[in-house]
């Protein structure tokens, strides 16, 4: 036998020994895998035998396992790498030693590890993300609290004119409730439980945070929970939930109803007719138009169609206004005003923003909007003058102007008295006394005026945003800085240039 043949034989012996070693381990694995098909395992073994014979040049490498422990010590995962070229297989004992060596004592899933070892050894594939151990999160302790039933936990329905309905269904801007309807439940306190990390460290139970809500007006507690005491509208403001009374006027506010003054919300199925007034301490929803009437509400006003003044309309709202259009009307809101089609020849005041829809136009009249104006078009080619004032609290300005008017009256009276005294004399001193009194009154009003002006709330960030076109004959003022639109401009934003004290155009 020559040397070459001897070498061949040695290789064959070596590979055979490797093969036998593999076989003996796999046989032991089969006994540990009762639910795996023996035939399947044999087939896999056969493949591996063939691989060992076909690629005897592969250097043997033992199978191995790497452990990955999460930073918070709550989870340990493993990656298993199969043996190569007849290297040693993974065995449970060495893996157990490895886990112990890492100090992992809690939540070890030996079954998962065993299954992964079996798969890696038999299929010869790398296995990742085997959960070796999992800690237990602590359960927070929660105090007794109230929880609103689901329909009242949903976010508010967006108020869009096309979505506004009067039928009290799901698209109504009001959440209407019936007397006795369940609003909230009392959830008992829950004791906390400690958790454990995979190293056996105890994690103390935290105090869980639950929002504190409280029942308010027209809510009563029953065995079932907190229920509506009256038919009305569900309100959630701040931390309190309540039910406010709702007056449902199915038709118009006209001679059939007379003027309305209601402590709560009012739903008008028709329109507010010319000459009639509607006052509500809550919100008002009008399904058609408000025509030349007086409307005052303590909260929001939603008008599905327009607010039409015919010079006499006067609308005062503490909250927000949503409507389709405003015409020839005096409108005042503490909150924002959205008029989707726009505003025509109206006097509009808001302490927030005035915004039109994507095709909305402002033509004529004046708008005071402390936080700014957004419109698609302002003015028309031959349209009336339009004035837009931003950045200042109109309610303070109104008071200052009221003082100004009274002061002008006083000043004119003072001038008359002075003139009379000079031309006719003042033997009894009556005119002199009157003059002194008038001067004192002017002084008092001036002091009041200066105090108001010094407290005038300013928003120097207020902007006038024109999505489309703005025409000449428009005046824009931001925090007293003036700008006269002298030419047609497109897609521009007007803002205050604080350093120069002028209106900048972008």
């Amino acid at each position, binding site marked *: 036998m020559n040397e070459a043949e001897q070498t061949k034989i040695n290789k064959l012996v070596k590979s055979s020994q490797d093969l036998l070693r593999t076989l003996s381990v796999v046989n032991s694995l089969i006994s540990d895998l009762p639910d795996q098909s023996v035939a399947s395992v044999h087939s896999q073994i056969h493949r591996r035998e063939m691989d060992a014979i076909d690629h005897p040049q592969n250097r043997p490498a033992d199978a191995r396992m790497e452990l990955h422990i999460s930073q918070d010590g709550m989870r340990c995962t493993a990656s298993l790498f199969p043996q190569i070229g007849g290297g040693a297989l993974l065995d449970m004992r060495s893996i157990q030693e490895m886990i112990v060596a890492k100090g992992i004592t809690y939540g070890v899933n030996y079954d998962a590890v065993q299954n992964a070892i079996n798969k890696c050894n038999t299929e010869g594939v790398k296995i990742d993300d085997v959960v070796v151990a999992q800690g237990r999160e602590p359960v927070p302790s929660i105090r007794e609290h109230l929880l609103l039933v689901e329909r009242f936990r949903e976010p508010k329905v967006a108020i869009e004119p096309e979505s506004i309905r009067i039928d009290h269904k799901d698209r109504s801007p009001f959440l209407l409730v019936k007397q006795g309807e369940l609003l909230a439940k009392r959830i008992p306190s829950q004791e906390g439980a400690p958790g454990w990390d995979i190293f056996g460290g105890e994690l103390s139970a935290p105090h869980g945070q639950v929002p504190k809500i409280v029942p308010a007006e027209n809510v009563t507690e029953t065995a079932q929970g907190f229920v509506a005491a009256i038919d009305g509208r569900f309100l959630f403001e701040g931390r309190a939930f309540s039910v406010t009374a709702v007056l449902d006027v199915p038709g118009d506010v006209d001679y059939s109803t007379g003027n309305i003054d209601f402590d709560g919300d009012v739903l008008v199925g028709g329109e507010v007719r010319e000459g009639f007034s509607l006052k509500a301490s809550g919100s008002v929803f009008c399904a058609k138009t408000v025509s030349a009437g007086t409307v005052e509400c303590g909260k929001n006003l939603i008008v599905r169609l327009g607010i039409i003044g015919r010079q006499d309309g006067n609308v005062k709202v503490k909250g927000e206004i949503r409507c389709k259009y405003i015409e020839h009307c005096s409108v005042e809101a503490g909150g924002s005003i959205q008029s989707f089609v726009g505003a025509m020849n109206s006097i509009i005041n808001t302490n927030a923003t005035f915004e039109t829809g994507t095709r909305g136009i402002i033509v004529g009249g004046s708008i005071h909007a402390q936080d700014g104006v957004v419109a698609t078009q302002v003015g028309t080619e031959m349209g009336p003058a339009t004035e837009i004032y931003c950045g*200042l609290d109109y309610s303070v300005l109104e008071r*200052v102007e009221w003082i100004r008017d009274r*002061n002008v009256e006083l000043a004119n009276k003072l001038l008359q008295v002075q003139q009379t005294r000079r031309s006719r004399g003042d033997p009894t001193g009556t005119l002199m006394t009157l003059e002194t009194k008038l001067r004192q009154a002017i002084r008092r009003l001036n002091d009041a*005026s200066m105090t108001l002006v010094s407290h005038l709330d300013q928003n120097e960030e207020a902007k006038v945003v024109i999505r489309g076109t703005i025409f000449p004959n428009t005046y824009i003022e931001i925090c007293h800085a003036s700008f*006269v*639109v002298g030419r047609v401009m497109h897609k521009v934003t007007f803002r205050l240039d604080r350093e120069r004290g002028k209106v900048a155009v972008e």
Partner: protein
Amino acid sequence: MGKRILIIDDEVMVLDALSVILEDMGYDITVCSDPRQGIQHALTEPSDLILCDLRMPEKNGAEVTREILEKKHDAKILIITAFPSDPLAEQALSNGSIGLVKKPFEIAKLLKYLAD
């Protein structure tokens, strides 16, 4: 001595009442109902603020603004107008007026400019 205000306006009634109110606030008021006299006064006498009507028969506020600022660059001129979107108002602003005051007169704005 208070701040000096020169008022150029041909509507005497408004001016008289305004003068009474501003004098009470401690301002030193000079009134000119003729814009030419107003320009002359503005150029020869010191003023902290000049209030000038926009629409006057002899000379409009934009012209008055231009003529004063040509010779006295640091003059502060506020235009008084009933119609702030008037193209003449734009002209006055381009000529260097610091702002517009809507008639009968916006006291809050006046006080703001006087404070500045």
